[in-house]
């Protein structure tokens, strides 16, 4: 009797381990950030997309004189069907590209994106708006600049 009972409990333990991954949400879509067409202040400028309160457009941050046409915040959509699941977005401190004459960076993602962690109600789709602060340096060349921002989405089932 004793050996049989022990084996059953061990099997139950393995089933629990395997089920953990199936509970987690997943990333289902990503929409790019666009800072629009910028006629830049020759002295350089800061362009902000503050999506902390929802989808947003770019605007000049501070006293800059750049002109911006178009643009939009980005979005990450996840699927979470487990009520109580805690979702946290983890951003890099900054990302940069260089055109040879100047280096431009985007930073401040966390402060300009939907605040996390958030707790899922288990209903499924959840959307997170993504913004940032683009730092344009003087002396840069006219061009279209592409940045890649690696975002980690953490699903925590306490």
């Amino acid at each position: 009797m004793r050996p049989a009972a022990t084996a059953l409990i061990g099997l139950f333990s393995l089933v629990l381990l395997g089920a953990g991954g199936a509970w987690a949400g997943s990333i289902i879509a990503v929409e790019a950030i666009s800072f629009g067409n910028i006629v830049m202040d020759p002295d350089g400028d800061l362009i902000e997309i503050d999506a902390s309160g929802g989808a947003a457009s770019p605007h000049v941050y501070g006293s800059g004189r750049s002109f911006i046409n178009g643009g939009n915040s980005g979005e990450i959509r996840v699927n979470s069907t487990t009520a109580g699941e805690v979702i946290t977005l983890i951003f890099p401190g900054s990302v940069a590209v260089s055109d040879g004459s100047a280096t431009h960076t985007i930073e401040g993602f966390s402060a300009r994106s939907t605040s996390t962690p958030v707790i899922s109600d288990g209903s499924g789709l959840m959307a997170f708006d993504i913004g940032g602060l683009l730092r344009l340096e003087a002396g840069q060349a006219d061009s279209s600049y592409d940045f890649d921002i690696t975002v980690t989405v953490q699903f925590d089932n306490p």
Partner: protein
Amino acid sequence: MKVEFKFCFLTMITVLCLAASGTVYAASTTISATATVSTATITLTPVQNLDFGTIVAATDSNILIDATGGAAAPSVDSGTATITVAGNAGEISVDSPVTATVDVDYAIEDSVSNSDQIDDGGGNSMVLTAASMYQNSNTGGSNPGQLSLTAGVTSQLYVGGVLQINAAQAAGTYTGTVTVTVNY
């Protein structure tokens, strides 16, 4: 019997610990960001001066160039003046590297920086007011107003106004400077 019981107990402890610790799963994705940057500025190029023509006036008269409809010639708005040589609205072409709506305004000064006047350089002046602007085929006429620009497409801006001539206006050629400013 005793050994088997201990193994069972340890397994149960393991299960409880796993249940208490929960699971954490992380997924990474790459979100792209783009910025199209240009250092080129909006360019304004004079095409045609604002010209009220040649006017003969024996009484107080107002000469109007109504540029709210685009290119326009001067007409007598009040008084008995006669326009002997026709003039025209001022015209400025505007080029922009981006599609945008910008604020535009203009000011008129005579040779000694008096606003809304033109002068003959000899101490005689006339008032030029109610200036009007017009852009392409849109309705306009306000100052300041807004100018709709399309990237790579040259837009035209027309400038008019009302010139006030006194009955005792000294004969001469009166000039001033119209400064158009685009704010963006």
